[in-house]
């Protein structure tokens, strides 16, 4: 698998995750099962080093729609 194709696969996975999560949130208002989510990460904390302040935090939000979207887009990537 050359570099261009690997790049395209990463792009497809990211697009699938984003679109799947949005669709999961939207459809989850009708079928609440699709929006059963885990969210993990850590909330922003500040590290005070006297000469500078560092603030860092990251949170991931995964629901069923994310998984469905990633699998669907990987399938689409494999058939093109």
């Amino acid at each position: 698998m050359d570099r261009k194709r690997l790049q395209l696969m990463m792009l497809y996975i990211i697009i699938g995750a984003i679109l799947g999560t949005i669709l999961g949130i939207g459809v989850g208002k009708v079928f609440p099962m699709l929006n059963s989510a885990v969210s993990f990460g850590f909330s922003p904390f500040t590290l005070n080093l006297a000469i500078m302040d560092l603030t860092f935090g990251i949170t991931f939000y995964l629901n069923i729609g994310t998984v469905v979207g990633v699998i669907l887009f990987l399938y689409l990537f494999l058939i093109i």
Partner: protein
Amino acid sequence: MKSTRSRIKLRELIYLSILIALGIVLNLIEPPISPIPGAKLGLANIVILLALLFFGESEAIVVALLRAILSAFFKGMLHPIPLFTSMGGSIMAAIAMILVYDLCRKHFSIVGISIIGGIVNNLAQFFIVLYITKNSALWYYLPILLFLGGISGWVIGLITKILYNKTKTVVRNGS
């Protein structure tokens, strides 16, 4: 061998930056269609489609993202609603055009891809505005927006087709 490859990368980089600059300028000078608020021709979709046709999928996403951010800087509007609508609209249009271009290239011409992009652009902007304002009266505005998206996508597709046919030998072969 290595210098040839790096020359090709350099050429690609230069063409991409020309496309981004053209997108910013087209976005700044495009005339608003006066009687309908929010309806624009969306001339910047030309450069996204050209980047997709010439270079590939990731480059189209990069052009769409940088074009939206930089033109917001140039206009001096970092207010969230115009920034998010412009950015979300162009990225969603780029994603839709990429999917159509990858999956069913045989059945769609350049004009067809551009019409899909125009419609998705307006649809994404509509949903972002709906999410921010939560004004359900906006739903009555959706059919007009979809129709205008189709029309503007058609016009942009015709322009892009002419541009692509005129410039493809220059961009592919370098001279």
